[in-house]
């Protein structure tokens, strides 16, 4: 059953990765303006200026 060690390790690692990503996004204020984030996607400011 040695494979379990690897599987559990992988599961925990992936979970921890997700948690780290969540904590990072929280820390960088990405949940401060949820309505705005939903709308900013409609802005065309990535187009080259004419």
């Amino acid at each position: 059953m040695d494979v379990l060690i690897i599987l559990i390790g992988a599961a925990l690692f992936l979970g921890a990765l997700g948690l780290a990503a969540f904590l990072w996004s929280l820390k960088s204020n990405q949940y401060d303006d949820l309505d705005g984030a939903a709308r900013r996607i409609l802005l065309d400011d990535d187009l080259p200026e004419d």
Partner: protein
Amino acid sequence: MTAILDDAASAAGCCPASQAVPVAFPDEAVTGAGQAGTFAQTGEDGRHVLSLLVDGITCAACIAHVEKAARSVPGVEFARLNYSTRRLQVGWQENSADADSIVTALAARGYKATPYAPEGVSEGDDAALKTLLRALGVAGFAAMNVMLLSVSLWAGSDMAPETRLLFQWLSALIVLPAIAYAGQPFFRAALSALRGGRLNMDVPISLAIILAATMSLYQTITGGDEIYFDASIMLLFFLLLGRTLDLRVRAKARSAAQNLLAMRSRAATVIRSDGTREFLQAEHIRPGMTLAVASGERIPADGTLSSATATLDTSLLTGETLPESARSGATVFAGSLNIGDPLELVVTAAADATLLSEIVRLMEVAEQGRARYVRLADRVAAWYAPVVHGLGAITVLAWLWSGAGWETALLNGIAVLIITCPCALGLAVPAVQVVAGGRLLRAGILIKSGDALERLADVDTVVFDKTGTLTTGALQLADPDRYDEATMALATALAQESRHPLSRALTAAGRSHPATIRNIRETSGFGLSGEIEAGEIRLGSRTWVGAGEDAAPEDTQAEIWLRDAAGNLTRFTFDDELRRDAVETVSRLRQYGMAVILLSGDRTPAVRAIAETLGIRDWRAGCLPQNKAARLTALSAEGRKVLMVGDGLNDAPALATAHVSMSPADAADIAQVAADFISLGDRLGAVCDCLTTARQSRRLVWQNFALAFGYNAIAIPLAITGFVTPLIAAIAMSGSSIIVTLNALRLKWMS
């Protein structure tokens, strides 16, 4: 702001900048410029940051317009708009740009921006929400991984003992640190409640979580099977979810209120003894200073008028719809709007001593009284916690008495505490409040405090203010078809030169092209005059046009007179229109069994007319702010639960005194801060919507409590008799939470 409201607005071409026409500027926006510099903050690196509240943001394009407008000011390095809170932050290096040009740049695009001092807007909610979210993330991560291991433990009865032990230790390794971190919001609240000698829901929650974890650890070490790691972390996850939802509802409402309060700290123009003018923030004004107040500006402090005459709109303070004329030496109050010529005044009372602050103070006193209201969940917790702890103790004693060992007795006692942990109770109220809040938001109503719905459901009396609440608050020309074209043309031509509310109403009603008039002059407090080919014409008060006191019947309507070149007099009358659904709303409230009362600061005849139209028998006119509050105190002394609906500054103390209160969105800032509900539309029917939703919510909350107790009635005997296994605990706990949440969602489909 809801998506529905926004989408409707964008379809109509919402943003000022997306309309091709040049934007006519609201008076207060223009005067806001020139003061902005005092609000800019300087960082250590010499960078200035200005925080602004921006009005009129309704769609995605507005974000781009606002940020682009701010960045277009030379020297500006960054501009970031928070769409949810309507707050804009602009930064620039020292001496490379200035605050006023940013306000002006935004104004040119049609966005009214008000600078505010960021320290006045507390970040407490944000920080608390972040702590909860972090805890929620950690608990979620731990719950997922432990469940993975626990399902194997439940299913794998043929598992090798070493593997079993490994899984148990792994669970312990994940859960114990997770609980130590994510449980802190509950542990802290429980500790502070115990220190204060109280019991709240957090005490049984904390006890159950800690005991479950400790016992599971003991069982793991001694090789037992009663391991509740999964149940305890899941419990924590569900409870954190409820807590987060609850805080989000309240934080959103509070940030709206803070925006309003921040706007209040305006700056004022001070005239120094050498004649120079200087901008000062309102809290730096001292008695004895001379202030200049431009047309369209609010007076920042109480004082004595030093200009010869002035015309003031005091509706914010008194509810009086007609403008008031003041002469030199008269006392003027902070909060009055100067609608005449620019005026000067000598400050007699500033900042905390003004009438405005007095009203705010009255309001705060009243709010403290209301803070004594105990939320339903806390009332339930107050007897739930002792019962649960008592049951646990009885279980231990009963098992000991029946001859079981200490270990078995304690195990079963702890099982009782775990199974009764108020998981469903913790979700029962917030889940309903979130759904109710969402439903009211779609109907255009904001809820400011979490327990407002509970209080609203108890209401048996509704008190209305008149101006701006039952009526639209805007004067309208009565029966405009009565006047002939030529008269209207003359009147409109003069009226459009004045900012007086009656002139504005006249201009708004003008159908024809205004006539050409030369030499138009305004005499503050009297009226306007001008010349046409045939001679002088005048528009204004009765005395201004030379009409005798007997020229027209003495009635209560607001009036304005026109004298044309030939000396013919025309009298224009104005009504303050009832809201369209006022009659219907009042009669619906009666059907609900409510007593309806009208309290107004306006004159008796005007109030009587409205009361008769609506069939309200209990009314009083000429009420001062303290009269209204006193009447509400008297009503509550009679044991009545009052809903106060009002919009003026003069209503603020009453709004805060009432059991629960509501304000329209165009109400005075301070009234909105005092109110529990803010309705965004111009429908008075929102009052009925709120009442229906509040009563349905109360029913659902009670149903949820019943469900939670029903679950306990089944589970507690099992726990006491020692039949609960970790699997049963996990299923029972998540099952009851899900049922309670689903029941709360039913509110969405109720009519």
